[in-house]
């Protein structure tokens, strides 16, 4: 599946829920399935700034595609990064760079999109795209 298809899939899943409780419960569920970062990468230079909780992200290139792994000490944050990784992992750097993230709004997480500092979603997306940019440069 490409990025757009994955986003559509997630939007469909979230559309099943009637209220925020179900959405958050599902997000917490997703957090538990997050492909965990190797402990050796859980260092300060893998931390994403701008979150009230700690988020570590690591990226590796496999067959010209980026594989993301991550972790967080907060479970909702873990759910959010899990959603992002489900969309962006195993994709070409250039596709990651080109992707838009309007689906976040559609799944009812709009409040996390504000560029303020309490939540880290904007910083997370930025960081994932930074990795993509780095690998993209390396590839071309």
């Amino acid at each position, binding site marked *: 599946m490409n990025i757009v298809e994955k986003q559509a899939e997630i939007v469909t899943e979230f559309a099943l829920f009637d209220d925020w409780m179900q959405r958050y419960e599902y997000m917490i569920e997703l957090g538990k399935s997050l492909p965990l970062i190797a402990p050796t990468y859980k260092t300060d230079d893998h931390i994403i700034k701008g979150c009230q909780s*700690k988020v570590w992200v690591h990226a590796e290139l496999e067959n010209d595609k980026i594989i993301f792994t991550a972790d967080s000490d907060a479970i909702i944050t873990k759910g959010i990064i899990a959603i992002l990784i489900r969309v962006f992992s195993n994709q070409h750097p250039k596709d990651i760079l080109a992707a838009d993230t309007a689906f976040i709004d559609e799944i009812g997480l709009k409040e996390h999109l504000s560029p303020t500092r309490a939540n880290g979603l904007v910083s997370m997306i930025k960081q994932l795209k930074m990795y993509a940019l780095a690998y993209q440069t390396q590839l071309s």
Partner: protein
Amino acid sequence: MYSTTLHLEKIRADFPILHRKVNGQALIYLDNAATSQTPLSVIDAISDYYKNTNANIHRGVHALSQEATDLFEAARKKIQTHFNATHAHEIILTSGTTHSINLVANGFASLLNEGDELIVSALEHHANIVPWQMLCERTKAKLNVIPMTENGTLDMEAFDAMVNSKTKVVFVNHVSNALGVINPIEHIIKKAHAVGAAVLIDGAQATPHLIPDMQALDVDFYTTSAHKICGPTGIGMLYGKEEWLRKLPPYQGGGEMIDQVTFEKTTYADLPHKFEAGTPNIAGGVGFGAAIAYMNSIGFDAIKAHENDLLHHATKKLSEIEGLRIYGNVPNKVAVISFNVTGLHPYDIGTLLDKMGIAVRTGHHCCQPIMDFYQIPGTVRASFAFYNTHEEVERFVSGLEKAISMLR
């Protein structure tokens, strides 16, 4: 189940924001330690100022300027009376607690020598740490820290042992914003004065709950922010004893704070103007005065009684939740409850409470040293004001239980 000491329905009608919805739910505002809400009388005082009297103050001969000056100075007078300062010119109107503390710390730069010692407490807000660290860098004075104990109080034996003839300034908050614990400032002031040290008390978290008496405390500097006591943002006060304010050099340079300016030599104006460079936050000052008047119209005895009710009610209920730990759960505290639940991150709890319309603060509360002490990333802090109700406490507790069950 409204409290008997306060007419809560009437009081809540004074605060438009308390009637709004958040995420589809009636707002329960329990983030009062971060900033308090603003009653109509304060909002109106500010609007009225701009609609009727707005002018730059001091030195203007025209009527508007005189009226605006009178309003601003009347606010200073109200603040003086409220805190029982000896003189109105001992009340410096600043942009807030942070500004006040920086003003004092900067002033001591010229009064300290290498080897002098300063004493801070482990319970301080960053605003009462960082300016002094900057001062120590500039002067090579040494910063000693009163350690805290597991229950969130200060280790006063350690403090007593720390004070000596090299001690020049002691700065401690009256009430810890992260924990709500009331510190023994009377003892600290006496002890510091015995060796000739000055004492600055950060009262940002005390003034919403009690009235500190400047003369009875015999404190050298005391500071707070209007936005913590139903007043507007961008204004606060620094009380300073006249003799100390005369000793300290001015902080910012500009209009109002000068007597004569030539390029060769500038002389400074008298108190309080020496420390009030530039156009002040005039509307803010007027709003600050209105806030003091509002709080007194409710009455601090009634405020204290009601808040204690809320505190005890909430503490009791929370204590029944498994794995919940309250930090600083001591008898001598204000209506602030800082807690964690085993295995859960404060951010997760705060986020879910917010979805239920309940506003609490999560994180380090600008007190990283306290978090380091407990080795935690932060806490959930519910802080109450006199306009909160027992029903809100109930909804908060059941909301918390729901959040916990979702997260576990």
